[in-house]
């Protein structure tokens, strides 16, 4: 199986944002690149789309150079430039012709993103959210795209497109790689994630599980419950920070396991009707700090193991010399 995206020690600088020595391999599915534009998240997407070139390293998309794979790549930048003087319907038809999609599906595709009202609009008259929605619709509903790259999929879009995107990403036959500064968006849309901080990939993990990452303020669990006060009163671990809102209890503690256990005991002892327990994703910065710390710890552990492995062997004692008998000298 050809990997959807491979970055091999890639360094690049685009519009003041850096990506430094990034290495990443994404086989298929939905990958979130979590980081702000200044962290290089947009740079990574632009490199994969062929819209920027690395100063060092290699970018391989679907087994080849990005420029050789354009018909299989959909790209939704933050500020798309559309071909001028076309109606939206003509643009989607043109793209269908170029990619090899059926042009008879154009109306249906626009309808899926709530864009049927824009079908006869000139592309020059579209606002940025409208243009992004059109590009996202084309990329995600095409049957020929194999990789769709999106910058901030749930931001700067028309409301109808924002509502349609989670489902479109789930149903897409193509692999999807998107950048976002919102861990919440990453968690709600992606199967896997990579975290960027100041141009460096500090984590590239499997399924996004914020329970596995405690930020500087610990882990926070939220319980949606009918009687919030009863549940809060039943929490027996007083080292936890407890927040009470109508029908919601927030519990903050040093690690996932202790918070989960405290909440479990409280639910059992109070008999409260809990509708849902969920982990609140960390905000971007705590997430980046936590991921950096985890990466540093892993690196140091690996370094220590490597040092142990190459440490010089303890010299074995040689044959014990026979005791010198008295009187033999």
């Amino acid at each position, binding site marked *: 199986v050809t990997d959807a995206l491979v970055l091999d020690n890639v360094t690049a600088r685009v519009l003041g944002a850096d990506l430094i020595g990034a290495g990443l391999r994404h086989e298929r599915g939905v990958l979130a690149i979590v980081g702000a534009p200044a962290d290089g998240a947009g740079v990574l997407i632009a490199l994969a789309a062929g819209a920027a070139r690395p100063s060092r390293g290699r970018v391989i998309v679907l087994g080849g150079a990005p420029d050789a794979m354009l018909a299989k790549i959909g*790209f939704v*930048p933050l500020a798309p*430039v559309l*071909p001028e*003087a076309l109606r939206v319907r003509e643009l989607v038809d*043109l793209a269908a012709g*170029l990619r090899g999609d059926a042009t008879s599906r154009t109306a249906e595709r626009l309808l899926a993103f709530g864009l049927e009202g824009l079908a006869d609009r000139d592309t020059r008259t579209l606002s940025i959210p409208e243009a992004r929605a059109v590009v996202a619709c084309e990329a995600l509903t095409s049957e020929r795209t194999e990789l769709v790259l999106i910058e901030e999929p749930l931001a700067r879009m028309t409301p109808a497109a924002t509502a349609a995107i989670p489902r479109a990403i789930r149903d897409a036959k193509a692999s999807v790689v998107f950048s976002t500064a919102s861990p919440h968006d990453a968690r709600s849309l992606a199967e896997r994630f990579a975290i960027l901080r100041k141009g460096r990939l500090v984590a590239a993990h499997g399924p996004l599980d914020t329970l596995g990452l405690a930020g500087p303020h610990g882990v926070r669990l939220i319980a949606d419950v009918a009687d919030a006060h009863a549940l809060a009163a039943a929490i027996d671990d007083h080292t936890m920070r407890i927040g009470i809102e109508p029908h919601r209890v927030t519990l903050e503690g040093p690690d996932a396991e202790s918070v989960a256990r405290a909440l479990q005991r409280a639910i059992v002892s109070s008999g409260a009707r809990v509708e849902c327990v969920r982990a609140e994703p960390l905000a971007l910065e705590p997430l980046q700090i936590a991921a950096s710390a985890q990466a540093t710890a892993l690196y140091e552990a690996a370094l220590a193991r490597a040092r142990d492995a190459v440490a010089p062997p303890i010299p074995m004692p040689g044959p014990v010399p026979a005791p010198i008998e008295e009187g033999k000298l």
Partner: protein
Amino acid sequence: MLALSRLPLLRLARTPRAWLAIGAWLSLSLGFALVLRVRGHEGATDRFLLELYAPIAMPLLAMAITSGASGPEGVRTFVRGVMPFGARGTSAAFATIGFCAVACAIACALAAALGVALDHGSGADLVISLWVGALGGATYAAFFSFGSTFGPKGSGRGIFLVMNWFAANSGTAGSFLSPYAQIRSLFGGARAGDLSQRASSGALIGLFVACTLLTAWRCRRRA
């Protein structure tokens, strides 16, 4: 390729400002031809072709068509607009130049022929104005398309226009960079350096091919 060449056609058709510029240069050249006819100048055809049409009206008409079809920011930006939708940069560039070349060839040939007809040119003049107009128009389309790939917002196109005028009188080597020098020679004006008229035709074809290939090469990547 055919689908991609519809794009510059639609842009040109749906941009009224481009038609204003095209209309202005056509009106200027035909107006000048009419004035020469009314005043009964001797050698009006030559004066029309060599004093106004070849140096001014023809390149500016071709530039107006190329800008109208490929956008004010040049071919590279125009091509980048379709690359996110699956188009290869080189194919889109070839399609754009192809359309511009055909449109400029038709417009420049018709403008030259109409001017010659207004000035009562001979049948031979009419034929020469048609084919030199067509060849020159196509060459200008490729020349300005290549120029538009340089500088911010396609500003290289203007620099190429100025270079076209200056290089025309700078000897044989310099005239290779100037479609005007070759067109002037083919219309019966001063030679392009030491080149014969036959060589000038070849130089125009060579310039067209070179500019087309170089433009496609410069548009091959998205970044």
